[in-house]
């Protein structure tokens, strides 16, 4: 599976959203992406890409699109 598909699937599976929702998906825009959901999402991304996110990046991770920028810092090319 390529990295972008892996990235998408983490969101789809963890937040129970559809692929067409991803481009506009932001924190708290769906009920599953609340404080609890955010921690699970970050943990799943760390597992999927074998990285450890910095605290500031966990806090800045406010949307699907913003997440791509953040993961680029960890050499995850999406």
């Amino acid at each position, binding site marked *: 599976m390529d990295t972008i598909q892996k990235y998408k699937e983490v969101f789809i599976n963890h937040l129970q959203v559809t692929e067409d929702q991803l481009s506009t998906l932001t*924190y*708290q825009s769906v*009920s599953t992406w*609340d*404080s*609890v959901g*955010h*921690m*699970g999402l*970050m*943990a799943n991304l*760390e597992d999927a890409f074998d990285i450890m996110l910095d*605290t500031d990046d*966990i*806090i800045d*991770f*406010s949307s699907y699109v913003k997440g791509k920028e953040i993961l680029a810092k960890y050499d995850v090319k999406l």
Partner: protein
Amino acid sequence: MRVVDAIWEKRNLGVDCKEIVIEDSDFITVVKKKELLLLNTPYVVVKVPVNRFDINTYLSNLGFTYIEGSINFQLRLFEAKLLPLQERLNKVVEYREMESKDLTGLYTEIHNGLFGTDRIILDPYFTKEQAAQRYCNWIADELERGSQAYKITYKTDTIGFFTFKQIDEGVFYPFLAGLYKKFESLGMGFTTLRKPIDESIARGGKMISTYASTNNLPVVRSHTQQGFLLNNLQYVFVKHN
């Protein structure tokens, strides 16, 4: 059944208010004896235990509106839990007892809309300003009685707060907590529950008992995720006469 003359609501909301707390063992006939009070007090709040369909129906027929469920959560401190990622974040978030300037900041945050799911703010008879001032008064009263308020900080920012009250030996009640508006989109909401747990542990406590509204599902989810158990649930009905 307990009937409380909620005199503090006169100051907070400008109306005479009675709060009626129904017990499991109360017969409907006992509740019906209070009908004059239920229909004549300007603002009536009735808290009903679960499984009392007879009383729920009676109140609905009198024109009462169901406005929220009030959940009592309890946590035995040794059962507190965090996800590994939350453990990491919790280590870099700190808390400290508030000074007067911090309290001023807290009251400003409250007036700017820190809380949005309580039975006052959701009630069209009241204003957002009244709901906010009620919280400020509550905090000030509790601090006067010896409770504490703490600020939660990340790096140089105050990101939220919690209050802290001892209600029994080793039992603490963080009666209000929240994340400040600017920081609510950071995924740090869990710290408003966790820091009171840390403080309870530091004080040698054994349990936290607290309340959450069913209108605030993210907060309910956060409690269950951190190990809190639902101890009790009351249905809350209101009526304006």
